[in-house]
C-alpha cells in the first residue's frame, strides 16, 4: 500500500498492513491479518470485535508484547512518533514500552503481582524509566494513586493487591500505566472483568485522564456500549481483519458492513433490526476457525448478503461508504467498509436497505445511545 502522507505524518500511531502469526502445533494461525488504522494525540480509537477476532493480539503487537515464539509479526509497519516499532530492536522497544506506550490489561487481579505491595509495583514502574530516588518515586506513586481516585493513597500504597477490590485494582493498574507519563495508552478490555457500576467509573477515569493529559487512547473492547460512550473513532475487526472503520458517529449511525450491522443487532433491547431476521441465525453461528483458508471475505459464511464475489481473492479492500464525503476526506479517517457491496461494482443498498425498518440512521444511533450506562 502507498503511504497516505498526510495521515502518517500527523498521526501519533500509524498502523499499516500489520500481520501477526502464531505457529502452533495445529498449524499456523494468522491472528492479525493486515490491519491498518491511525490514532492521534488525544484521540480515542476503539478496536471492536467478538472474541477471537484478533483485537488483543493487534494491541499487543504494537509494542511486540506477543510471545515470540510462537508469535511473529510477519509484515506491516507500526509507526509511532516517526519510528517503526515492528522492526525496532528489543532495546528500543523497552525504551518505548511504559515510557511512551503503556498498557492496561483486562483482568486487574492478574495484572498485579500478588507477592508485592501496590507501592512496590508502582515504584518499579516509575523507576524503570526515571532515575529518581526512592522517596521521590514514592511521592509520585502516592500522587498517581490520588490521580486515579484511590482514597487515602498514602495508606493504601502499602496494601497488597488482594486487599483491594477489583475496581481499585484496575485503578492501580491504570496508575502503573500512567507512571511513565505515556503518550499512548493501550487499554485491553479494561472494564470487562469489572461489575457494571465500576465499569463506568473506570471509563470516566480513563476519559478524565485523557482530557487532562491529552494522551492517545487505544481501547480494545467487545462492548459496543463502551464504544458509543468513549470512542472518537472505531475499528471493527473480524477474524484478524478490519471490517469497517470510521468515526463513532458514522459507524453507529450508518453501520455499513454486514458484520457491523450484525454486531449492533446483538445489543439486547434494540428495537431496530439492521439485518434481515431470517439471516440472524446465520450471523449467530460460531465464527469459523481461524486456521481456515484466508481466501475471500472472512465473514461470508455468516453473512446474509454473501454473493459469489465474496469467495474470490482476499478480504475485500476497505471501500469508502456512500457517506464517506460527510466525514473527514483523507484516507485514514474516512468511513470505510471491507465489503464487495461497497466496491466500485457493488450496490451498498443491498446491505443498507435490506432491513426496511432500519430506514433512518438516527434511530440506530438512538438505540445505540440507549445502551449507554
Amino acid at each position, binding site marked *: 500500500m502507498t503511504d497516505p502522507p498526510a495521515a502518517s505524518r500527523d498521526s501519533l500511531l500509524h498502523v499499516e498492513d500489520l500481520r501477526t502469526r502464531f505457529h502452533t502445533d495445529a498449524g499456523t494461525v494468522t491472528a492479525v491479518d493486515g490491519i491498518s488504522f491511525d490514532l492521534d494525540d488525544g484521540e480515542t480509537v476503539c478496536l471492536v470485535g467478538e472474541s477471537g477476532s484478533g483485537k488483543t493480539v493487534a494491541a*499487543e503487537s504494537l*509494542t511486540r*508484547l506477543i*510471545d515470540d*515464539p510462537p508469535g511473529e509479526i510477519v509484515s506491516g509497519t507500526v509507526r509511532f512518533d516517526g519510528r517503526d516499532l515492528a522492526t525496532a530492536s528489543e532495546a528500543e522497544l*523497552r*525504551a*518505548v*514500552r*511504559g*515510557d511512551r*506506550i*503503556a*498498557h492496561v*490489561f*483486562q*483482568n486487574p487481579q*492478574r*495484572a*498485579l*503481582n*500478588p*507477592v*508485592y505491595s501496590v507501592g512496590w509495583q508502582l*515504584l*518499579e*514502574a516509575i*523507576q*524503570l*524509566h526515571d532515575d529518581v530516588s*526512592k522517596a521521590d518515586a514514592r511521592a509520585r506513586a502516592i500522587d498517581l494513586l490520588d490521580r486515579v481516585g484511590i482514597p487515602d493513597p498514602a495508606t493504601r500504597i502499602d496494601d497488597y493487591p488482594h486487599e483491594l477490590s477489583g475496581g481499585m485494582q484496575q485503578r492501580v*493498574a491504570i496508575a*502503573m*500505566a500512567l*507512571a*511513565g507519563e505515556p503518550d499512548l495508552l*493501550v487499554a485491553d478490555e479494561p472494564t470487562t472483568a469489572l461489575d457494571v457500576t465500576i465499569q463506568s467509573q473506570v471509563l470516566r477515569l480513563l476519559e478524565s485522564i485523557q482530557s487532562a493529559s491529552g494522551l492517545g487512547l487505544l481501547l480494545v473492547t467487545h462492548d459496543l456500549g463502551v464504544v458509543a460512550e468513549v470512542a472518537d473513532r472505531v475499528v471493527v475487526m473480524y477474524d484478524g481483519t478490519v471490517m469497517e472503520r470510521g468515526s463513532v458517529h458514522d459507524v453507529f449511525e450508518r453501520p455499513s458492513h454486514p458484520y457491523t450491522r450484525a454486531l449492533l443487532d446483538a445489543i439486547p433491547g434494540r428495537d431496530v433490526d439492521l439485518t434481515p431476521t431470517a439471516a440472524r441465525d446465520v450471523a449467530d453461528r460460531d465464527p469459523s476457525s481461524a486456521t481456515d483458508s484466508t481466501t475471500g471475505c472472512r465473514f461470508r459464511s455468516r453473512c446474509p448478503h454473501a454473493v459469489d464475489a465474496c469467495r474470490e481473492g482476499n478480504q475485500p479492500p476497505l471501500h469508502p461508504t456512500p457517506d464517506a464525503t460527510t466525514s473527514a476526506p483523507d484516507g485514514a479517517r474516512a468511513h470505510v467498509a471491507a465489503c464487495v457491496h461497497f466496491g466500485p461494482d457493488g450496490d451498498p443498498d443491498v446491505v443498507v436497505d435490506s432491513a426496511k425498518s432500519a430506514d433512518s440512521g438516527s434511530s440506530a444511533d438512538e438505540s445505540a445511545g440507549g445502551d449507554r450506562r
Partner: protein
Amino acid sequence: MIGAEDSPGTGTDDSESADGGEPPSERFEDVDWASIDADGGGRSPLRLAALVAAGSYGLAVASDRLVAGGDPTIDVAFGGVAFVWDATAVDWLFVATLSVLAFALVPLARNRRLVAYYWRRFRRHRPAVLSLAYLLVIFLLGTVGTLFLDPPALDVAAAYQPPVFLSVDASIPTECVGPVVEGRCQGTWRYPLGTTADGKGLLALAIFGMRVSMQVGLIATLISITIATAVGATAAYAGGWIDEALMRYVDIQQTFPTFFLFLFLAYLYGGSLFVLIVIFGVTGWGGIARIVRSEALQRSEETYVAAARSAGASGPFVVWRHVVPNVSNSIVTAATLNIPVLILSEAALSFIGLGNVTLPSWGQTIAAGRGDLATAWWVSTVPGLFLFATILAFNFLGNALRDALDPRQEVGR
C-alpha cells in the same frame, strides 16, 4: 548508588583473598549482593546487608583461625596443608550459605502478617512443629555448639562405656568409668550416650556429626537451588530453543552417575567433604530445575509478567523480580525435601568408607560400631537414631511447608 554497593563487597573480597583466597565463598558473596540489591532497592537494607556480610566474614575468619590453630586432631592426624584447606573451604561455604539464608529471611521478617499467616497454616501439622523444634536444636548445636565444645577425644581407657541409666556386662568395657554393680558396668553422666571402641563420647560425636550433616545438607542444597532456579526460570521464561537446550541438558545430567564421579574423585584426591558437597550441589539440581520450570511456565503466562514487560522491563528483570519470587514457595519446599536426601547420601558414603575418615560424620560412626552390635549396640544405634530423626524431621517439615506455602497441593483436607 551502585558504586556504593560494590565498594564494601570489594573490600570484603580483598580481605578474604588476603586471608586465603576462597573463590567459592566469593561467588556466594556475589549471589548475596545481588539478592540484596534486588530485594528492596532501598538504601537501608543494603547497609544492613553490608554489615551482616562483613560480620559473617569476620566470623568466618575467626572460625578459620580456630580450626587451623585450635584443633589438634586435625593437625596431628593429617598435618598436610591440603586438609586444613579443605576444612576451611567447607566452613567458608557454610558461613556464606548461612548469610545467604539470613538474607533470604529478611523480606519474611519485614512482613510480620505474612509470617503469622504461614505460621498459622504450618502450625496445624503437629509433627512438623516438633520437627522444626528438633531441627533448630540440631542446627544450633551443630553450628554454634561445636564452636565451644571440645571435639571427641581418643581415650582407649574409656572404650565401650554404656549410655547413662543403662548397663553392660563388665567384661565388655576395657575399664568401667562408672560403678560396677553385680558384675555390670553402669553408664555415667560423663558419657551420657556411651562411648565408641576408641573411647570417644557418642554425645560429642553426634553433635559434631550434626555439623557435618547440616553443612552437607544446607550448602549443597543452596548450590542446587541457586542453579536450579536460574536454569528453570530462564528456560520457562525464554522458551524456544533455550528451554529445549537447558532441559535436555538436565535430562542428560539426571542420567549421570554422581556416585561414580564421587568415587573417582575420592580415589584421586581422597574423600573430602568439600568435594562431596560441591559434587552433590553441582549435579543434584536437575529435579528442582524441572519443578521451578513448570511453576515458572505458569507464572510467565500471568498478566503481571506481560504488564511488567509492557512497562519496559527487560527479560532478566522480569525473571528475577516477577517470576522467581512467585515460584519461591516451590523452591523452598523442594529445598527442604532435598536436604534429607543429601544428608542420607553423605551418611551412606561415609558408611562405606568413602567420606573423610577424620570427620565425625554420623555414617562414619554407624560404620565404626557395626562390628560391635552384639556387645555395644549403642555405638551404631545412637548416631543411627539421630540420622533417622533428622531425615524424618526434614520430611515432615517439607510436607508441612508445602501445605502451608502452596495450598493447591493440599490433599484430603
